[in-house]
Each structure stands twice: as structure tokens, then as C-alpha cells.
């Protein structure tokens, strides 16, 4: 009886279907991050018809996170009905209760992303970032693997190695950033003139990359209405999750 009541209570807490792929109910992302994710996922949907839904929620209301993910996937119809190529990522941040994350795969993606792979993505890509409250970083790291694998471009192993390359790039950029900060810091202490003097190549690269980021960010906010709607995909319990 209690279980039934809990179930009914929990039933009421499944969010209503929206027309967005990023539903940040727990406010884990900034406006810009949200828009950028939405933009990327809509583009991915447009190009491959694979739909990835991201839900963050501060409470699962007694729900098992896996069932929460499956039910949203099924009810919202994530993925195309004929391919069942939907994927649902649920993130419950750590608050009074432990943090939890789950990747649920539609029937059609169970082959490309088996449970053991989903488990590794959650454990190795997401949770290390989530532990540092870097929710955006964890989601991006996971999507860097999920997107090429779901699109059938790479196997999981290849995508992982690929991320090694991305990591190297990130580290390079960080090094550049440190140089820039040091350079600016030096300028500041000397003559309080930030913009002055010639811009060295590193600064140029850094500013360029910043400009690129801003550009795609503003694109993201532009494309708010670009999502064509959920396609009626079905979920059979595939996927895996973890907690921290």
C-alpha cells in the first residue's frame, strides 16, 4: 500500500513534456550553456535523427533514477518511432541526498551504447566533473563520446581515444590562457593599461577561441524554436547510471 502510494505520488512528479531537448529544472547550467547544449542537440537531431534529452532535477521524489529516465523517454517519445533512437540523460545533483546520473538508451541505441559503456561514460566522464560541481563539463565530456558513437561514426573505444586528443587541446588552451593571464597581469602592474601594446600570438589565439565560443553561444539562443519535436521513440530499460 505504502509502495503503491509512493508510486502514485512519484507519478505526479514526472515533468510534463516540453518542446526542448535541454530541461534544466535543477538550474545546473548558465543560460549560455543551456542554449549551447540545446543548439548542439537540435543540430544532432537534425543531422542524424538521434534525439538526446537532458533532464536535471533536484529531486527524484522517491523514484528510482532508472525508472524516472525510462518513463520520461517513453512518455515524451524521445527518438524516432521507427528507429527508437532516443537517449535520456538524467542528472540529480548532490544536495541533501547523494547525486545520481543515468543514461537511458532507446531500443535502437542499445547496440551502439551497451549498458557497460553507458556505465563507463557515467563513471569516467560525468561523475569526476560532477564531483567538482562542474555539471556542464561532465555533460559535455559525456556528449563528446555519446554523439559520435550514437551517430555510428566511431566505436566507443575510438571515441575514447579521440577524447584524449580533445583533452590535449583543452590542456593546450589552458596553458595559453595562463600565459595570457600572466601577460595581462604584467601589463596591469606596470602601467594599468589592459588593451595597450601589441597583441602576442597566444593572446590572439585565445581571443579568437573566445570569440568562437561566444559566437556559437549566441547562435544557440537564436535557435530556441528550432527543435522539431519528439518522434515517439520507445525505451526498454537499456542504459546505466552511477552516484556520487
Amino acid at each position: 500500500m505504502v509502495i503503491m502510494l509512493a508510486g502514485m505520488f512519484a507519478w505526479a512528479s514526472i515533468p510534463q513534456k516540453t518542446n526542448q531537448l535541454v530541461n534544466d529544472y535543477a538550474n545546473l547550467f548558465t543560460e549560455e550553456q543551456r542554449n549551447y547544449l540545446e543548439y548542439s542537440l537540435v543540430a544532432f537531431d537534425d543531422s542524424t535523427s538521434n534525439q538526446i534529452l537532458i533532464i536535471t532535477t533536484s529531486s527524484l521524489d522517491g523514484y528510482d533514477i532508472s525508472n524516472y529516465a525510462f518513463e520520461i523517454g517513453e512518455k515524451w517519445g524521445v527518438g524516432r518511432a521507427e528507429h527508437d533512437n532516443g537517449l535520456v540523460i538524467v542528472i540529480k545533483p548532490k544536495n541533501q541526498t547523494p547525486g545520481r546520473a543515468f543514461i537511458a538508451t532507446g531500443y535502437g541505441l542499445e547496440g551502439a551504447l551497451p549498458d557497460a559503456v553507458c556505465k563507463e561514460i557515467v563513471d569516467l566522464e560525468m561523475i569526476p566533473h560532477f564531483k567538482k560541481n562542474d555539471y556542464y563539463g561532465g555533460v559535455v565530456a559525456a556528449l563528446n563520446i555519446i554523439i559520435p558513437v550514437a551517430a555510428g561514426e566511431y566505436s566507443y573505444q575510438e571515441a575514447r581515444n579521440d577524447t584524449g586528443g580533445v583533452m590535449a587541446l583543452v590542456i593546450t588552451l589552458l596553458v595559453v590562457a595562463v600565459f595570457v593571464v600572466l601577460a595581462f597581469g604584467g601589463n596591469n602592474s606596470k602601467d594599468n593599461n589592459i588593451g595597450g601594446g601589441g597583441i602576442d600570438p597566444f593572446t590572439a589565439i585565445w581571443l579568437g577561441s573566445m570569440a568562437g565560443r561566444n559566437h556559437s553561444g549566441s547562435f544557440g539562443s537564436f535557435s530556441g524554436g528550432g527543435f522539431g519535436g519528439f518522434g515517439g521513440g520507445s525505451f526498454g530499460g537499456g542504459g546505466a547510471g552511477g552516484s556520487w
Partner: protein
Amino acid sequence: MKKLSSGLIVLIVIGAIVVITLLWGIRTNNKMVTAEEEVSGAWAQVENVYQRRMDLIPNLVNTVKGVADFERGTLEAVIDARSKATSVQVDADNLSEANIAAFQKAQDGLSSALSRLMVTVERYPELKATQNFRDLQAQLEGTENRITVERNKFNEVVKAYNTMIRKFPNSIIAGIGGFEKKGYFKASEGADEAPEVNFEF
């Protein structure tokens, strides 16, 4: 305008009623056939995911056996429960309440043997640390999730089917056509894990 005799009018009316009733009967029958096929399809999925679990067990047993001093009792309980569960098969044409209950009982026996095994494994950190075991664990968890989902979906279509065949006047056609009530999966005994989730829309 030609005048029809009252007898002829009665005949026409009766004839029309018979035709309409027949058409309704055929349509209802066909709807029930469709609903029954949906139940069979959902059952096939249920069997599928349970079979998937069966297939994982030999691998799991072998992995666990590799640990030198592993407790034999829990391992043998899993093997026994598996062979019991294998022996209870239910045909899609005979999904009576008794058959479903027997099937569920055998499978739940395996579920509890497996969960005891997983608890025992907690005491063997060197086993838990191996990649092979971690993969198996993820697969097993995934299989349990699939079982939950497919059981819920099965219950949902059975509910629609049972409601259809038991409502009057459909029940008359169901009686003629031999459509029988089908069984549900019940929430497992000691279902302490997750709250039951239903896929009602």
C-alpha cells in the same frame, strides 16, 4: 409511392438489426484479436529479457568461481534457481493467471538468489575490482531494468485487453470467440527496491 406491407417493414428492420449486429460482432472480434496479439508481442519481449538474464548467468558464475575461496552456497543457489526458472516456460497462447504466477515465482526465485550473490560479492573487493565483473554487473543491472520495463509494458497491454473482453457487450463476443482473461505480473514479494512504476498515460 408504393406502400409496403407492415410485415415486410418488420422483416427489413430485423434484417438490418441482424446485419448491424453481425458487423459489430466482426469488428469487436477483430479488435480483440489485435489486442491479444499485442499481449503476445509484449509477452515475447518479457521472455526475451528474462532469457537475456539466463544467458548472463553462466558467465557470471564462471567469473565468480575464479575467486579461490568464494562461498559455494550462494553460487549453487543461483545455479539451482536458474535451472528451475528454465523449466517454467509459458506459451503465449496460454497466459492464464496461474501460468503467469508460476512463471513469476520461478523467476523471482532466481532474482533473490542473484541479489544474495551480489551481496556476497561485496566481501570480495578483488573480484569487484576486475573489469570483467564490473561489465557483468552493469549488464545484470541493465537486464533487471529491462525486466521491470517489459513487465510494466506487458501489464499495461494485458490491462487494456482484459478490460476490453470483460466489458458488456464485448463480453458476449469474447465468450463466443474464446477470448480469456490473462494474468498480470504482481509486484514482487518484498519489493523493497523501487516504487512500482506504471506506464499509464
